[in-house]
């Protein structure tokens, strides 16, 4: 007598590799994009913050509020591919200027103050 013969039909594994790939790839892409978006957002936040500070210099130089606001929007558009700058407020007098804005839809609020000459002197 020879060995017992397996009469069961062998399992079809053809789609398993594709399924695993789809699951793993989507997970991989999710992680990659999440990391990318978070780090990009941090970078954008820091850049827009600098831009807000720069707009206070713009005010201090005597340019109009409208012009300085327009400059923030224009320069920020280089890095803000999805999202926008809202509620920009710039005000000040001869010595102190304050500015605030929001980055939407992330609801990031930024505020900067510039005092001349205190902030410029080491």
């Amino acid at each position, binding site marked *: 007598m020879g060995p017992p013969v397996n009469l069961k039909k062998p399992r079809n594994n053809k789609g398993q590799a594709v399924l695993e*790939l789809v699951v793993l*790839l989507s997970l*991989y892409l999710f992680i*990659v994009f999440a990391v*990318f978006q978070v*780090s*990009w957002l941090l*970078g*954008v936040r*820091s*850049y827009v913050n*600098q*831009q807000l*500070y*720069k707009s206070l*210099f713009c005010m*201090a*130089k*005597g*340019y109009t509020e409208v012009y300085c606001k327009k400059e923030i929007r224009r320069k920020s558009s*280089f*890095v803000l591919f999805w999202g926008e700058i809202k509620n920009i407020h710039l005000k000040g007098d*001869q010595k102190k200027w304050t500015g605030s804005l929001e980055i939407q839809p992330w609801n990031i609020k930024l505020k900067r103050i510039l005092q*001349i*000459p205190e902030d*410029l*002197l*080491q």
Partner: protein
Amino acid sequence: MTFLIISPLFISIFFLSFSFLLVLKRHNQAYFICYKTGANIQNTLREHLQKLTSMNTQARILRIKRKIAELRYHSALASLDPVNILQARKRLQKVKFEQQSFSNKQERILKQAQISFQTQWKTFKLKSKKYIYNVKKTFHLQPLAVRKKPAESDSPGYVPVEGFSEKQKIKISWRMNGFALIPQKLQEHLGLKGISDHHCSVSLEDLTGGFQMKLMK
């Protein structure tokens, strides 16, 4: 296998995007460094300027003293009294000497302003070498935009020139390379042109309470 193919692609996108962000941030940082340098230079110059202008009262007193001494000398000459003439001449010489040493003090302040300006400028140039290049400065003929009043006096006062803010202004200009992260030879090979010119200007304003710093357009 798929991961091996797409990972380098993502890494490249990561690298490129963050390099772009870094370049933009460097541009802003260069501006802030520029304003800080300009402000620090002007602040030092302001101190010299205040010292110089605060001496104006003393300069005026010396001019009056000189005028009186000269008048006395002339009247002594008219009196033909040798003792009187000798005394008047001595007094006049004393006042002239006082004026001379006072004028030297004023000159020294002007020179100190020039030296501190040069020193700060050199330090800035050394510090900024990493970020920017072709740094230049433009300003009026001398670091302090003042003129003698009266010009021919031995102990003149120093007053701000006409259009003081514009002439006291220090304009710092520089060049930035947007592709600084890429080696120079590769940039040339690829024909990349990321060079841009920038500038910032800081000056002083002559207000009633003294000299105030002012950012210029």
